Structures are given as structure tokens and as C-alpha cells.
């Protein structure tokens, strides 16, 4: 039996911490058993009965902490004791990496006093209660859960605002805080561009484009998709702008959102004037006039938003390559006359929105599950018609199942179905990389791409698949590998969400006038 003991003079831990240390110590591979207790007579008596009482332990006082470790055979006692002491030290300094499961937010906050943010992903019906607890414990919140009532969202955001905290969400899939990407965030280099986004994949795309332009992100604050609705009133976006305005590490601010409520857009734009630094506004389908009048920099797309931000705050000479129109001509020449339509199957809502708006700007009719025009709105069960752009991350598709960035099965089945439609010329798809996303989004889609192309070929048609891989060279898997796999499968790969929309629009025009 290899017993080692140490006495920590006048050392106090509350019982929950002591239990956590003890549990952790007993789970170490090298430890047969560990005992951490105050040096009272009775505790020493128990150790004596077990034959574990050393002279050092015997001298412990009732205000001292006793650490007794029995090492497993082959493990060095001193080395094991050092590991247990490390646990104590970690607990005392509260800076260590604990892997303890906590049953409550309060316990987690107590055990990790340096933590100042809670990521909450529980059933939406209970999420509000947990968020309130986190805020009451002075924690910023990223609320991943959806299906949280809007009234509750407003109340929680007001509470956060009063306490000077961020309440990112609900349904917030992306944030980068102090260079740590949360949920679906990408690996983006640190920099001076601050992003506030009411759109998860829109935020991902802008941050990835900023990275591609050689710049970086100071913080990316997600607000949740409803923040700019009439009911919520942009509480978190306005707080985000103010936070960036006060942040010396941020030189330029980018705002990203799907189309906001007009009254809220006005309120948010009013904040720009007092920000004291350039603000680039990318509201899908937003008004250039309103943004310019407010003193902001209007962005026509996600790539333009990133480009302007980098030019304004980092590198005035930053540039992007224009769309290669030769490829469009080559592809258009392959279609039969009846192949007149483009179908978009997207994981990212804003990526879908951006491509759909590109099509709409050219005067095309577009049907979608996220169409503002009720006459052209589809449901998850609706068959495609004309140009159809579907956001598979929308509630209608995700009800009771994971997000398509995690589980792509619905989209894969739809791809095969679209290939059977003789009117379809091209299918546009996004492949989103990121920390919480599918580990190989292209790989899991390739069999369906092959099947879809085969179906079209059997019918004597060419089916063009256009793919965009959203990610940075720091992401895993590497975008270069994903792109290579797509190209090997005969997929045309675009370089940004904006270019994807431009390509789809140009292709639609070509086939329309062919």
C-alpha cells in the first residue's frame, strides 16, 4: 500500500468544492483512493482505523485540510499527490480546466468564478428560466435554444441590458468572444473588426470573408434572429453597437441582419451617428439611402460588408476578384431548352437569403420558405416551383430534428428529387464548416450529388451543381480539401456567398434568354 499525505494549514473549501476535488481525485487513473477532509479528531480517528494515519496527519488541526492519497500499484505516490494538489490549487485559483458536471448554473458559476459567460442549449420551454439564473449570476448568455416565446426574450434582454450583460439569442448559433468561437462559429484570426449580427450564418460568412481579406475579428456578438423584430426592438444589437463603440480594440463595426422591421431599422441606424467609428450595415434587402443618411456605410452583400469593413479599419487596398463569367457561359451551353430554373438548397438562412435576393433583384420570381411575399412562400412539404430557394435551417424544416449543418439528410433527399425535375438546370448549395457543424459536410453530400447527376444524365440532361464552402484555412476540415472533393465530383465552386448569388442570377439569366 503506497500512502502519501499532506496537510494544508488553515485551508478552507466549502463542502461542494471539497466533494468535487475528492471525486476528481478518485477518478484519476493512478489513484486507488483519495480522501480530502478537515483535520478533526474524528476524521483522524477514521484514518487511524484504516491504518492511514501518519505523524504529519496526526499533527493536523481542525482548521487544516488533510489530503490522503493511496496510489495504484506502479504509480509513484509523490507524483499522484502532486496531481491531487494540482486539483486543490486549481480549485483555489479557479483558473483550471474543470470537467465536472454541474447540476445548476449557480453551482457552475460558483465552481468557475472566472467564467463570465454561459452557453445555454436546453429545451426552449425551460430556457428562459436558465437564462434568468445565469444573468442573476452576472453571466453573459449565449442562448442556442429556439422556441423561446418572444415576450420572454424581451424580458430577458431587458434584464441583461439593466445589468450591463449580453443576452445573445434565442436561436443564436454563432458568436466569437475573446477569440473563442462558440456554437457554429469559425476559426477566425483576431483583429479589429467588431461584428453584431442577428443572423448566424450571415455572421459566419462576414467573419470568414474578413479573415480571407487578411483582417480579423475583435468580437462577434450574435443577437438572435428576432432581435430586429418589432417586438424585441433591437435591444441587443443596440447594446452591441454601444459595446463596440466603447471598445478600444475595435476600429470598425459591421451590422448584419436579415430584413429588419422598419421601425427597428430606424432605431438601430440612429445609433450609428454616436458610435464614433465607422459602421458598415449589411441588412439583407436594406435601404442604401437610409444607411447613408444615418452616417453608415451601406453594404450590398456579405462580401461587400467584409470588404468595406477591412478597407475602413485595416487595409484601404483590400480587394476581391470579380465573378468569372466565362464559366457561366460554358455551363449554360450544356442545358436543354426546357432547363430554365435554378434551385437553391441551403443550410444557412442568410446565405439562402443573399442568393434569393440576388435573383429577385434581376426581376425573377423566386419561391421560398423564407419569402416575404406570402404568395410565393413554400412550406417544407411544398414541391419546388420555378426558381426555388430553400432554407433547411428554418423552423419548418428543423422542427423535431437537428439543424442541417449537423444532420443533412433532408437536404440530400431533396437534392435527388430536384434532379428528377426536367426544368431544373442547376442546384446551388452551401457547405458550412465551423466548430459545431458536421465534420465533413461535403463528404456526406457527395453520394447524393453523384446520384443526382446520374439521374439527370440518364434523362439526357446536364445538371449543374454549384457549391460554396464557408470556412477559413484555420477550420477543420480544411476548406481546400472540401473544395477539391467538390471539384472532383464535377461541382462548380464559388468563392463567397455573394458570388454564389451572383453566379445563380447570371446562370438564370442565361438560360432564360437562351
Amino acid at each position, binding site marked *: 500500500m503506497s500512502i502519501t499525505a499532506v496537510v494544508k494549514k*488553515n485551508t*478552507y*473549501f*466549502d*463542502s*461542494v468544492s*471539497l*466533494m468535487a476535488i*475528492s471525486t476528481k481525485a*478518485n477518478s484519476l487513473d493512478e489513484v*486507488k*483512493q*483519495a*480522501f*480530502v*477532509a*478537515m483535520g*478533526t*479528531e*474524528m*476524521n483522524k*480517528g*477514521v*484514518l487511524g*482505523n*484504516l491504518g*492511514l494515519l501518519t505523524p504529519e496527519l496526526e499533527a493536523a*488541526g*481542525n*482548521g487544516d485540510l488533510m489530503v*490522503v492519497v493511496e496510489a495504484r500499484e506502479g504509480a509513484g505516490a509523490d507524483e499522484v499527490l502532486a496531481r491531487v494538489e494540482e486539483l486543490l490549487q486549481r480549485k483555489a485559483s*479557479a483558473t483550471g480546466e474543470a470537467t465536472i458536471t454541474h447540476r445548476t448554473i449557480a453551482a457552475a458559476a*460558483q465552481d468557475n*468564478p472566472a467564467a463570465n459567460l454561459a452557453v445555454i442549449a436546453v429545451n426552449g420551454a425551460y430556457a428562459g428560466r436558465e437564462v434568468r439564473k445565469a444573468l*442573476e*449570476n*452576472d453571466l453573459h448568455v449565449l442562448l442556442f435554444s429556439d422556441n423561446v416565446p418572444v415576450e420572454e426574450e424581451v424580458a430577458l434582454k431587458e434584464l441583461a441590458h439593466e445589468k450591463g450583460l449580453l443576452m445573445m439569442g434565442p436561436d443564436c448559433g454563432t458568436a466569437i468572444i475573446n477569440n473563442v468561437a462558440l456554437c457554429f462559429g469559425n476559426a477566425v484570426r483576431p483583429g479589429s473588426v467588431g461584428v453584431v449580427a442577428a443572423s448566424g450564418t450571415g455572421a459566419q460568412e462576414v467573419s470568414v470573408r474578413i479573415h480571407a481579406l487578411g483582417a480579423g475579428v475583435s468580437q462577434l456578438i450574435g443577437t438572435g434572429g428576432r432581435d430586429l423584430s418589432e417586438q424585441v426592438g433591437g435591444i441587443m444589437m443596440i447594446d452591441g453597437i454601444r459595446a463596440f463603440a466603447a471598445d478600444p480594440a475595435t476600429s470598425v463595426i459591421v451590422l448584419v441582419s436579415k430584413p429588419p422591421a422598419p421601425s427597428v431599422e430606424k432605431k438601430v441606424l440612429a445609433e450609428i451617428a454616436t458610435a464614433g467609428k465607422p459602421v458598415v450595415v449589411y441588412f439583407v434587402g436594406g435601404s442604401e439611402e437610409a444607411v447613408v443618411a444615418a452616417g453608415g456605410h451601406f453594404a450590398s452583400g456579405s462580401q461587400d460588408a467584409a470588404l468595406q469593413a477591412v478597407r475602413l479599419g485595416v487595409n484601404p487596398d483590400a480587394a476581391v476578384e470579380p465573378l468569372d463569367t466565362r464559366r457561366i457561359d460554358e455551363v449554360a451551353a450544356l442545358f436543354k431548352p426546357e432547363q430554365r430554373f435554378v434551385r437553391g438548397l441551403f443550410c444557412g438562412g442568410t446565405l439562402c437569403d443573399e442568393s434569393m435576393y440576388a435573383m429577385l433583384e434581376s426581376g425573377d420570381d423566386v419561391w421560398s420558405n423564407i419569402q416575404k411575399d406570402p404568395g410565393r412562400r413554400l412550406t417544407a412539404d411544398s414541391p419546388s416551383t420555378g426558381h426555388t430557394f430553400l432554407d433547411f435551417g428554418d423552423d419548418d424544416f428543423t422542427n423535431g430534428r437537428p439543424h442541417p449543418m449537423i444532420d443533412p439528410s433532408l437536404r440530400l433527399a431533396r437534392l435527388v428529387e430536384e434532379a428528377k425535375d426536367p426544368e431544373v438546370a442547376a442546384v446551388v448549395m452551401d457547405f458550412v464548416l465551423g466548430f459545431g457543424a458536421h465534420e465533413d459536410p461535403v463528404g456526406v453530400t457527395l453520394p447524393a450529388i453523384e446520384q443526382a447527376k446520374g439521374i439527370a444524365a440518364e434523362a439526357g440532361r446536364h445538371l449543374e451543381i454549384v457549391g460554396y464552402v464557408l470556412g477559413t484555412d484555420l477550420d477543420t476540415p480544411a476548406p481546400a480539401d472540401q473544395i477539391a472533393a467538390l471539384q472532383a465530383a464535377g461541382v462548380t465552386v464559388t468563392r463567397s456567398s455573394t458570388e454564389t448569388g451572383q453566379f445563380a442570377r447570371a446562370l438564370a439569366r442565361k438560360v432564360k434568354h437562351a
Partner: protein
Amino acid sequence: MVSVSATTLLRPCSGDAVLLAHLRTLRGCGSVESVFRGVINLLLPDGGLMALAVRGSGDAPRTLVVDIAHWLDRGVEAGRAVEFGPDGIALQGAFGGLRVSVRGAIKWHPILPRLDSLTPSELAVSARALHHLVSVDGEPGGMLGASPGAAPMEVAVCTALEHGRDALVRAVRSSDTVGMRDAVLALLGLGPGLTPAGDDFLTAIALLSSLDGSGLGLFARVLHDVLDEQPGRTTLLSTTTLREALSGRFRAELVDVLCSLAATPGQSEVQAIETVRAPVRRALAHGHTSGTDTLSGLVAGLHLERELRGSL
């Protein structure tokens, strides 16, 4: 991060009325005994112990609840000097001074119910209801026995706790003061935490003994004597808590449990479970096993009260 450069004045929320009265006249230098996220324990100039708890903490004897979220970013460390004066309590943190005013605190008095109106059978019903909830919702590792898969050391502590409890119950039943003393000594300081499980168990019985009409007076005398004779037998916090309990003073959560038990006369066991469920759950949440160990003591104490009354 809190930025504190000069002295920060902290507003009191509520405080133990006895402590508040004491602090108004207390002068001199004490020290910080221990610092946790939710509480700082202070050694008073007279050698006593008091707690500065954060807002949202329940009231308790010798505790002043202060309007602060937590203590961790104030840089207060054990051993630092604390001044007690007419302006309140002054202590030094790494980021500046802190002054806790005593004025304006809402006074808290633990108001205990009377259990002497409960018949022996009603005491039995309330004890069984409490036992049921503690068994179902309580935390093992102390008076409820060892956790599943526990290491031999935890098993040894839990076995010793069980023996101590059985010995105490036997001794109290037979009014055996020598046996009571041995059992108290066997339990006092037994368990790993700052308030060891054995102490938590004894504390609840001590609190019961302070109620009007209690038959546990002999036990209270024995415990009092042991604490006087062997003050270093357990931690200072535990000794202080036990002494307060003997005087009928304990933290609000347990007082709430006692009040709910006093509301169970005429109820079936099932009804009584529902009556006491909410305060019991709050009390169980205290510490790791502390809540469970304390309520286990209350269960044992209620059974003893019933048996002792039956023998009158």
C-alpha cells in the same frame, strides 16, 4: 471585473438582530478567517465568528447579508486585518478598502414554531414524511450512507457516522448521559467538510432541543458541556453553529422546515409530505451533504421527541 480603487461602501441588506446589536458596540481588530464566493467569515476581536454573506443568501445566525453579488473579485484574503468600529466593518481587499455599514440592515430574528402541540402520533407522521423526502431527494456521502462506488475512506466515515447516530439514539432513549457524551464525541467533527456531517446531524437535534416543550434537554446539556470542554474538537464554524442551535438559532431554511412541520397536525403522511416538500428541498440544497445531514438529524430528533414524550 470590478474596479475599486478607494474604499467602497457596501450596503447591508439584512442581518441577525443579535449580531447587529453586538456590532454596534464592538470595537477592535479582527481578521478574515476564510473567503468563499458567497461568504466571508470574519474572526471578531472577542474571538467569535461572523459571516458576511452575499445578497440572495438566506439569513442565518451571526450573519450579515451584504448587497454584493460575490466576493471573488474583491481581493479579500484569509488572514487580513478587519477593523470593527462605529462606522461598521472595514476590511482591505487587493483592489482597495471595503467598508460594510451596519446601519439600515433589516433585522432578522429566527422565529421558531412550537412543536409541543403535536401529539406523539403527529410527531411520528411528520418524522416519516421528512424521512421520505430526505431518502428520496437527499445526497449520499454522509448520514445517508456512502455514495455508490465510494472509496473505502468514505465508506469508513459513513460507517462511523451510522454507529455514532445509533449510539446517540440509544443513549438519548435511555437517558444515559455517559452514553450520550460518548456518542456526541463520536460524531463531533466526523466528516470531511467545513461543517462535518456528524456536526450537522447534531445541530438539528440541538435546535429541536431548544424548542418549548422539548424532551431533549438532557442531550442539550451534554452537548453544551462537550463543546465547553473540548472546543477544538471540530471546526470553529461548526462549533459556532452548534452553540447557536442550542440557543434556538439556526439558518432560515431549517427554521422554515420546522415551521412547515408545525403545520402538519391532522394530516396523513402523504399530505404531510406535500406540506413540507418545498422547504425541505430548499434545505437539502445547502452545501454538498450538509442539508441532508442536518435533516437526517431532524428526523432522528423528531422520533426521539415522540419516544420521550410517550414515556412521560
